[in-house]
Structure formats: C-alpha cells, structure tokens
C-alpha cells in the first residue's frame, strides 16, 4: 500500500521544475499552482500503478501534461500559431555576428561569441519567461520539458504521445524561435547595444 510519505519523497525534488513547466504551459501563476496540485493528487491516486525503479520523473510529467491538455488549457489569448517560415538555427549567434560586422570592429577584437554571451547574460529571468511564454503552444510545451528537465526526445515523445520525429521538429524549431524572441526582447531593452559597447571596450 503506497504511503503518502513514500510518494512525497519522490515528488518533492520535482516540485520547483513542475511549477516551472506548469507556468510555461498555463502562462498564469494561479493556474500553474492549480495544475501542479491537480497533477500531484492524480499521481498519488495512481501511484499503485507506478512500477518502483522506473522513471518517476517522466511518469509524473506525463500526468502533469495530460492534466494541462484535459482541464487547464484555455483557448483565450493563445499566442500565434506556428509560423510558416522557419527561423534559422543558431539565431542568437547569427545576429551577434551581424552586430560585429555592422560595428566594423571585428578587427579590433569585438567577437560575436562575446556579444552573444553578453546579451544573454543581461537578460533577466522574467524576460526569459516572457519569451518562452510567447511561443506557440506545441513549441512551448516541448521547449519547457527540454529546458527544465533533461528528457530525451524519446521521453518527451512518450510524455506527449507523439512520434519522436515530431518532438525533434518542435524542439529544433521552437528553440530557434525562442532565440529570435530573446534577441528581440534584448533589442527592445537596449541590451544588444549595451553588450556591443561593453565588449567593444574590451571589458
């Protein structure tokens, strides 16, 4: 007979990241709390069906994600549907490279790597959350599971109940779009100019 203590021991280490994923999925703090609570209760009630020694993390996140799709997903204010044109991969790198070329200071040691790292370093967590929250749902879900946990393509495929090729596509395209959104936010907040200036001074 499963004890609450035994279950809680397995669940507790996951709660921060579970809340993180729930926040990405629902894009609302109160809904995220409700979702995690609901998933915790569902998981506890189904704990007898969990085989000890198998992947509790994947099992729990599948319950969480299913609960989102079943009862917490709201159609209101859903971000854009998946864009038709793919954003190129390594987007931040490419834009950082452009900054260096535009500034014409590559010869003086302004390096795209340093600019890219500096721009990302200046982004606040809230801005990261805003960027991931702005992604179309299917990208958002895959990216959230990828960034917050170290799930493999196969694990994410099992959690979402989609083919592994679909996971791969959503992750690659989602990450590229996320990088584009992050760069746009950085530009909007003057962080790109600040990073280029700081790196250009050889700081």
């Amino acid at each position, binding site marked *: 007979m499963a004890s*609450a203590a035994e*279950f*809680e021991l397995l*669940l*507790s280490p996951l*709660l*921060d*990241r*579970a*809340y*993180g994923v729930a*926040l990405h999925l629902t894009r609302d*703090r109160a809904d995220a*709390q409700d979702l*995690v*609570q609901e998933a*915790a*209760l569902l998981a*506890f009630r189904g704990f007898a069906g969990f085989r000890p020694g198998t992947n509790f993390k994947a099992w729990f996140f599948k319950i969480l994600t299913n609960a989102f799709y079943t009862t917490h997903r709201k159609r209101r204010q859903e971000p854009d549907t998946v864009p038709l044109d793919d954003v190129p*991969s*390594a987007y*931040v*790198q490419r834009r950082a490279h452009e900054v260096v070329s535009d500034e014409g200071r590559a010869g003086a040691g302004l390096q*795209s*790597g340093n600019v*890219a*790292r500096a721009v*990302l*370093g200046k*982004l606040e*967590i809230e801005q*990261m*959350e805003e960027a*991931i929250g702005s992604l179309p749902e299917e990208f958002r879900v895959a990216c959230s599971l990828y*960034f*917050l946990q170290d799930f*493999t*393509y196969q694990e994410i495929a099992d959690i979402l109940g989609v083919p592994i090729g679909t996971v*791969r596509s959503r*992750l*690659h395209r989602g*990450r590229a779009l*996320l*990088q584009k959104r*992050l760069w746009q936010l950085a530009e909007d907040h003057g962080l790109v100019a600040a990073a280029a200036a700081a790196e250009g001074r050889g700081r």
Partner: protein
Amino acid sequence: MSVNKLTCEQTFARLDDYLDRELTPMELAEVAQHLEVCARCAGEFGLEAQVLDEIRRKLRRIMAPAELVEKISEKLRQG
C-alpha cells in the same frame, strides 16, 4: 571504420541533434572529426551549447511557491 568527411554545411545541419545527444555513433564520429579540423564550426557548436546552457540555467532558477508545497503536503496527508 572509415568515417565520411562532412562539409561545414553538412556538419551545421547536425548541430541541434548533436547538442541533444541524438546522433547515431557513426554520425557523432563524422561530426567530431569535422570539429577537430574546422575551428569555425567548432566555435559555432561551442557557442550554441553556451547559448542553450544560459537559457537552461536561468529558467531553472524557478521555485515553487511555498504555499503550493504546503498545500500539496496537506492534501497528501488527507489522502
């Protein structure tokens, strides 16, 4: 084992799968071989890993609100 020599373009096409550790052993060997001899691609791969790491690091700072943790504990105790 003879490993195919990849072009920069072919190597770059495998960037995402490489970082996700989802390449087959043969594909991994092909990419690794190219990265050994091509500083530009090696730089791009390294930087992309850093970009993803920074995003990951910041997103993982999230913490569950204290009241959520307490509420769950309470409900589990109620059964």
